[in-house]
């Protein structure tokens, strides 16, 4: 590939995103006419990729790309064969028409610029998805289509139904994307390649691999959710909450076809096996029938079309997996035909809705004279959808029957399914194309007239293309159909079928389909009632299941959160320490790394052991303390004993610091703790005391064993030697510890000072909150105001607890209220310090009371 062509192709992939960035600005200046310049972006892309047609038709493959993360073998590379090129042309071509159509459909909408932006982003994601070569890009673009379609479906976000539909599409298709990711990872592990082009030559290895079943399930999970196969079909009709241009685009050629694209792309690799040829036709056939029944059931034009889309996707999946001689050709033809007629019909439905104000087929009629262009367009598209000659849909249907028909039971069953499904699709197609236009004129919410140019241009082009492609099949087949079928089948294919009816079993089946379809159309009202009754009898559907699933998920996560976050510090600490104990003990046991039996040091001096005993006495004293004084005393003993230990073992600096800190700690503790009450006994019941003690002992044991193990190992003195060597020669200090503190780790010490300062400030502000809050109370002299105003940092006022404080301690808030003249300040029975609480902090309040008149 020429360098400049490669650069151009890369630009083509970037263009939609550029357009998305420009769209809001252009819309601001040009209003809905911004559609014209914006349509140039997809049109340019279409023209660029059209240039590849001859190369692809000659059997070539266009590849190219740029290395992205070479060390991980990740590249932005593309692989354009018949399959990719068809999709690229459909996406960019229909995209051009859709952009124009959006200009007319959302004319005057306040967020039209945003809409253009979303739809162009979505287009960019789709283009990347169908052309990219690397697994990573495939997954990224796959999820990008999910996200952008979420934005598009939820565009009308003020309505709950739109929000629900958007979320549903995101959950279903995004969840499927995770399946796809897992499937791609397994594929990568099995084959060792991360590029689709290389993967195609690994088909036999993959099919023979023991992981084939896993790959199949995961890939199908991604494709079936994206392509709305039963039982994941429910998100697609709900996505009709989106504005019609979105429906026309997502559900004709793009989003829902992504899953089909994936299946077609991987057909040469995964296909041909019994599971593949069973699962795909089975799910596809079921989807075809379910989609058909549900389409008949509807009265809303868009919903009817949506369900026929479901049915068509089922047919495509069925053909992709069927594996008979004509199956790939049939899938190729039907794919193209469906994109053309479904896009046109969706846009027609939107035009009817736009001009009349309703989409309900029972409230429409007689529009043919008022909207002639729309009517002719709808008719053309429906004729193609119904599979009548010489439309392209006819060719597709002939090929479908040629592929399915056969002598064995499987072929008969699937042929039957296809005939019934197609008949229902036929009926739905003509219900959309004829019912609103024929018959007596029905009053509609808006007075209808022909749609403006922007609204009919797109559908006309697509409908005429459907006719033209059928008539000029000898031109279309070599350029599009044959390369597409070859890429699906993984071997050269030549599609020859023409619009000339030729006698044979397929033609007969077509005739049966059409007859059945006409019958259903004529009895549509009765068929609708029957379908409705059938569905009512079933009652539950996956759509309701989705609601139940989401509600269950929310409730489950709520319960899990309350379980993990009970808001009890006890619970958090218990979990923390259990994990600490496990983290210490489990590795020791797991790896058999228990320390050797410790040998009591022979040189242990009596005074050293005595100091340790003193420390232990302090610790046990704290544990057993019944009142404040004993607890403070015991804590002090423990701290000073540690200081003595430091002194005895060569750390005088530590010792002095520890003495100082312990003294200060005891002083502060004594000041504060006289106000806090130490419970006379540790009030834990035995049932709690035992597990607590077990956890504590496990932690202690863990630390002891770990320390023994560490100290039994070799000591690496390299850092110590460094400091010993350089403390004096470089930093000019003889006291190595001091040199480390102020010099080698000077920045660290600066940080330490900052911590101390910050804590000091925090303590100061904690204390000042009270004093500051007492100020306005003085001025106002309103006890109630104090009670509320005093509560710091938005804590709810505590005044309601005033009378019901269980331990009889007075709250400062309350007491200051009382201090402001309501009643004499109480002498708390809470302890000897309670009068002193108000000593300093309460002084202002007292002054305030004196000022009371």
């Amino acid at each position, binding site marked *: 590939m020429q360098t400049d062509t490669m650069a151009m192709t890369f630009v083509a992939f970037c263009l939609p995103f550029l357009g998305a960035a420009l769209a809001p600005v252009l819309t601001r200046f040009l209003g809905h006419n911004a559609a014209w310049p914006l349509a140039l972006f997809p049109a340019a892309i279409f023209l660029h990729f059209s240039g590849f047609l001859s190369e692809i038709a000659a059997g070539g493959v266009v590849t190219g790309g740029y290395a992205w993360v070479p060390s991980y073998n990740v590249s932005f590379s593309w692989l354009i064969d018949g399959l990719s090129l068809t999709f690229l042309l459909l996406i960019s071509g229909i995209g051009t028409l859709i952009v124009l159509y959006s200009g007319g459909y959302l004319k005057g909408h306040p967020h039209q610029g945003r809409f253009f932006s979303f739809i162009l982003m979505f287009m960019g994601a789709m283009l990347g998805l169908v052309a990219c070569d690397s697994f990573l890009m495939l997954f990224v673009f796959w999820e990008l289509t999910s996200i952008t379609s979420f934005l598009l479906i939820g565009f009308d976000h003020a309505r709950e139904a739109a929000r629900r539909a958007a979320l549903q599409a995101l959950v279903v298709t995004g969840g499927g994307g995770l399946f796809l990711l897992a499937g791609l990872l397994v594929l990568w592990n099995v084959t060792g390649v991360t590029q689709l082009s290389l993967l195609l030559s690994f088909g036999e290895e993959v099919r023979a691999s023991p992981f084939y079943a896993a790959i199949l399930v995961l890939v199908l999970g991604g494709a079936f959710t994206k392509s709305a196969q039963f039982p994941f079909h429910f998100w697609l009709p709900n996505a009709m909450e989106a504005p019609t241009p979105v429906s026309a685009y997502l559900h004709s050629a793009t989003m829902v076809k992504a899953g089909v694209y994936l299946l077609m792309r991987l057909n040469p690799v995964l296909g041909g096996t019994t599971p593949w040829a069973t699962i795909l036709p089975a799910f596809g056939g079921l989807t075809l029938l379910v989609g058909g029944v549900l389409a008949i059931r509807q009265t809303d034009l868009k919903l009817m079309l949506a369900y026929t889309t479901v049915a068509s996707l089922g047919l495509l999946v069925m053909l992709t997996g069927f594996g008979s001689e004509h199956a790939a050709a049939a899938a190729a033809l039907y794919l193209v035909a469906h994109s053309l007629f479904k896009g046109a019909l969706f846009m027609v439905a939107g035009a009817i809705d736009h001009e009349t104000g309703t989409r309900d087929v029972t409230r429409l009629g007689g529009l043919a004279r008022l909207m002639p262009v729309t009517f002719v367009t709808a008719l053309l598209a429906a004729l193609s959808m119904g599979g009548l000659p010489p439309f392209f849909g006819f060719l597709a249907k002939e090929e479908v029957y040629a592929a399915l028909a056969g002598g064995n039971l499987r072929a008969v069953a699937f042929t039957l399914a296809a005939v019934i499904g197609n008949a229902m699709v036929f009926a739905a197609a003509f219900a959309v194309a004829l019912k609103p236009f024929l018959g007596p004129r029905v009053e509609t919410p808006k007075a209808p007239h022909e749609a403006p140019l922007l609204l009919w241009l797109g559908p006309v082009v697509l409908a005429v293309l459907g006719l033209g492609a059928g008539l000029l099949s000898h031109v279309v087949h070599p350029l599009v159909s044959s390369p597409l079928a070859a890429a699906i089948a993984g071997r050269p294919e030549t599609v020859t079928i023409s619009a000339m009816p030729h006698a044979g079993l397929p033609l007969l089946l077509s005739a049966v389909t059409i007859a059945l379809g006409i019958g259903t159309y004529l009895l549509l009202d009765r068929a609708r009632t029957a379908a409705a009754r059938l569905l009512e009898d079933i009652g539950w559907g996956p759509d309701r299941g989705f609601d139940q699933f989401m509600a269950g998920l*929310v409730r489950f996560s709520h319960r899990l959160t309350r379980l993990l976050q009970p808001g009890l510090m006890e619970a958090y600490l218990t979990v923390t320490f259990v994990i600490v104990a496990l983290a210490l003990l489990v590795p020791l046991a797991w790896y058999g790394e228990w320390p050797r039996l410790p040998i009591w040091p022979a040189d242990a001096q009596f005074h050293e052991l005595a100091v340790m005993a003193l420390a232990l006495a302090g610790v046990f004293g704290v544990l057993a303390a019944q009142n404040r004084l004993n607890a403070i005393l015991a804590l002090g003993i423990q701290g000073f004993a540690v200081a003595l230990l430091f002194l005895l073992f060569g750390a005088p600096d530590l010792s002095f610091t520890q003495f100082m800190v312990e003294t200060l700690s005891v002083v502060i503790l004594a000041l504060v703790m006289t106000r806090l009450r130490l419970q006379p006994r540790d009030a834990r019941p035995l049932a709690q005391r035992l597990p607590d003690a077990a956890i504590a002992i496990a932690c202690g044991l863990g630390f002891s064993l770990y320390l023994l193990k560490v100290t039994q190992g070799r000591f690496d003195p390299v850092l110590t030697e460094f400091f010993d060597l350089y403390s004096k020669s470089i930093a000019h200090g003889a006291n190595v510890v001091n040199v480390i503190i102020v010099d080698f780790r000077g920045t660290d010490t600066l940080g330490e000072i900052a911590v101390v300062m910050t804590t000091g400030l925090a303590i100061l502000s904690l204390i000042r909150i009270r004093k500051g809050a007492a100020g306005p109370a003085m001025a106002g002299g309103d006890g109630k105001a104090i009670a509320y105003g005093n509560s710091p940092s938005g804590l709810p006022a505590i005044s309601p607890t005033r009378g019901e404080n269980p331990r009889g301690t007075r709250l400062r808030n309350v007491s200051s209220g009382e201090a402001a003249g309501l009643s004499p300040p109480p002498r708390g029975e809470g302890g000897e310090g309670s009068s002193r609480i108000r000593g300093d902090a309460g002084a202002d309040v007292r002054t305030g009371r004196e000022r009371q008149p």
Partner: protein
Amino acid sequence: MEVPFSLLIGIFFAAAVYLMLSKFLVRILLGVAILGNAVNLLLFTTGRIVREVPPIIPAAFDHQVAVTANPLPQALILTAIVISFSFFAFLLVLSYRAFQDLGTDNANEMRVAEPAADIAPPTGY
């Protein structure tokens, strides 16, 4: 001397954990204080214990010549002591203020920030 130190430290940790598992702030605070000492001793012991010889370089030399206590853990502990002290002081004042405003020193009763009732989350869209 590492063996007696290891055992002592284990008991320090066990006592600290037991105190911190209490519901009452005062005991939790005492636990935090003991935990600080336990960690400092742990650091001290991992640097190995040497008796009575502080890490000071003699005046006549420009590098260490004798076997002394390990200076590195000491430097680390020096920082740790100061920080654990300020932390302790902060927690102490915080508990005191919480006690003043909430009227309780039982951590389980401090539920101002917790939802009052177990309200089920909305399940709509």
